[in-house]
């Protein structure tokens, strides 16, 4: 069968360029298609990122409460958009947002906002902080500050992931598909600390594979790069400290000397604790009153919950297993497409097909001369599974009510950084379907365009009042 020239041309587009074009186009559409402050917890992240963009590193304490001084207009506009029950058909009014866009920031009139999200390191908001700082110069209306923050986050994501796709020596399209998964891009176009974690995980992933398949010796500079990325991941959020251990894919005999391998290993372990030893110590030195975490009316997590779990370890394991069975589906939707403060799930059939497509795509995407060994495959799977379990157990111990059988607080999007680990475990150079390989670019681009076009349409239809 003769393939038309236009298909050949599309097929020959480099994945990183496809990523940039689709990322910018659909990313910008998502910035505006997602109603203001409507990604999960975006309101809280926005307050904190705004506080940082104002140059305030520490929160404010008033009457024994901890929080931020925010312009009244900024707070009121943010609050006015919250609490929409999309399940019950509620939507965001464009008219309301249009009106809100005319309200000046008016920094002189402010209020104290008691915050629960206070101690996240500013490095996690680097994109939004830069975006907001630039945005405020152009238009300091609260909604416009949010748009600017989101664009900053998107640009940061595009930049990091562009280099990741450029660096990785194989499976560039699978990495592009993962990076442009609707939920990945949705996160990247929101103000959240999950964006740098995912972007940097992809970068470290790609860098490790580059080192693995390059014929050069691994030296000190390479180690510095790996540990620096691991540090930023660990500074951004707890719970993902296992992911940087992907560097263990690198065999010891590829290092300049054995010591360097052990130095890398030790540095990766130490990098887990550095955020606590630095930012944590700084925050403790502020002697802030304890904020009430999550819904304040219940006793959550802590030592009592740990005691409860340890008092019946088998029962706790059973509970975790049952939660994966009964809530797993909701988490799975969250990996691929759960929007509007998590209430609106993208078409579930489409998500199922897309998930199967991702796994099948890499299976057929022959890796050629780059072979992932079984040992490396198992390491990838182990890191993915352990990180996913860490997230689940973490929420069971910290964010679930004491004595609860149900795990609270876990959202599917938290598992996105583990996605490449599961998908790349299927890399192989044995299955070879020539027809697929000839069209793999077109197949990937088509999937990206279909999924992201539908996502933008879905956001517009589902969340906005027409």
């Amino acid at each position: 069968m003769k393939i038309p020239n236009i298909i050949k041309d599309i097929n020959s587009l480099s994945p990183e360029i496809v990523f940039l074009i689709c990322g910018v186009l659909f990313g910008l559409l998502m910035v505006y298609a997602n109603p203001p402050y409507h990604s999960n917890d975006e309101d809280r992240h926005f307050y904190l990122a705004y506080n940082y963009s104002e140059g305030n590193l520490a929160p404010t304490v008033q009457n024994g409460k901890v929080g931020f001084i925010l312009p009244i207009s900024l707070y009121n506009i943010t609050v006015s958009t919250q609490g929409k029950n999309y399940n019950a058909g509620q939507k965001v009014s464009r008219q309301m947002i249009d009106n809100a866009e005319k309200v000046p920031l008016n920094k002189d009139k402010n209020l104290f906002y008691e915050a629960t999200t206070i101690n996240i390191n500013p490095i996690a908001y680097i994109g939004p902080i830069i975006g907001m700082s630039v945005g405020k110069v152009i238009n300091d209306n609260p909604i416009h500050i949010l748009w600017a923050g989101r664009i900053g986050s998107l640009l940061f994501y595009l930049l990091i992931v562009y280099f990741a796709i450029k660096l990785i020596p194989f499976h560039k399209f699978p990495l592009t598909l993962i990076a442009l998964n609707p939920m990945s891009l949705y996160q990247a176009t929101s103000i959240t600390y999950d964006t740098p974690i995912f972007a940097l995980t992809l970068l470290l992933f790609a860098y490790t594979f580059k080192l693995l398949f390059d014929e050069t010796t691994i030296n000190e500079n390479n180690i510095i790069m790996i540990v620096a990325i691991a540090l930023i991941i660990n500074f951004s959020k707890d719970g993902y400290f296992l992911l940087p251990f992907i560097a263990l894919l690198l065999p010891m005999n590829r290092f300049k000397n054995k010591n360097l391998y052990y130095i890398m290993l030790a540095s990766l372990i130490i990098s887990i604790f550095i955020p606590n030893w630095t930012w944590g110590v700084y925050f403790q030195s502020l002697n802030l009153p304890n904020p009430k975490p999550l819904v304040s009316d219940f006793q959550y997590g802590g030592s009592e919950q740990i005691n409860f779990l340890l008092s019946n370890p088998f029962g706790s394991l059973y509970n975790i297993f049952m939660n994966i069975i009964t809530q797993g589906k909701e988490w799975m939707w969250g990996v691929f497409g759960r929007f509007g403060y998590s209430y609106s799930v993208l078409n579930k059939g489409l998500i199922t097909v897309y998930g199967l497509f991702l796994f099948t795509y890499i299976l057929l995407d022959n890796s050629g001369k780059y072979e992932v060994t079984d040992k490396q495959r198992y390491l990838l799977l182990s890191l993915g599974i352990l990180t996913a379990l860490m997230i689940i157990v973490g929420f069971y111990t910290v964010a679930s009510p004491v004595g609860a059988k149900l795990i609270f607080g876990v959202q599917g999007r938290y598992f996105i950084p583990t996605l490449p680990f599961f998908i790349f475990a299927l890399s192989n150079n044995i299955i070879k379907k020539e027809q697929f390989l000839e069209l793999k670019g077109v197949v990937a681009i088509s999937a990206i365009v279909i999924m992201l076009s539908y996502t933008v349409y879905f956001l517009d239809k589902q969340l906005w009042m027409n």
Partner: protein
Amino acid sequence: MEIMSKVTDIKLGNNKSPASRRSPVLIIFAVIVISFLGIIIAPKSNFKNDWDIIGKQYEESKAISDPKLRQEAFMTSLKEMIAMRNKYPEHARLYLNTAVIFQALNMPDSAFKNAYTALKKGGDGTVNQINSFAIDIMLKSTIQKAQVFFMQKDTVDALNTFKYANSLIQHPFLGKTIGSFYANFGSADSALKYLYQSYKLNNRDSEVFYFVGLTYYKGNKIDSAIYFLNQAITMNPNEQQAKSLINLITSQGNNENSKHN
């Protein structure tokens, strides 16, 4: 050339046949796909979703500054919470949640009843211990209700409100409060009974010692009264009530002495 390729394969560790190299990949593929589909097909729990929605609504209702609108928002949350409670009767924390909203709506009886049901059901978020949130709601609701009786000058019903709570839960505050009633207005035996009950649950409360001292003082057992009042002050040097009563007893003693002189 063929020999060279084989040598390269052996060097790279690729000395397995394509079929045996293929099998781990296909097994992992099968496991991932089956797990993926299995999780999607498995029955789901709606409880978490429902709770998230209502819990969030309630949290946002609290932030509404206009009292009337806030009350309306609480009522909406309450209706949804009761519906959810009926839908998932096994979840004790839904009763607790309902109690929270009733409390926010100044409906102490319903708050008390729901908190007590939550406590009885146990598990799933309710801690069956002295400082559990359910007990906290019950105590606050009891105080709230008793205050209404006090304002109506109906001390008997106020006392009965505390006694009813005391019959359901063991808490040092209740024993102390009832004991203080009797110490001020009733029988010494009853006062000591309830104060002892409170002492058994918390032996570091200086106020309990003060009320025991007061009970003995009212029963004209001055030595015992002074002993317990001193105990209260030792326990808490800022125990002003005990200090005042000792001063009163001392001044009364001085007066008596001066009369005799």
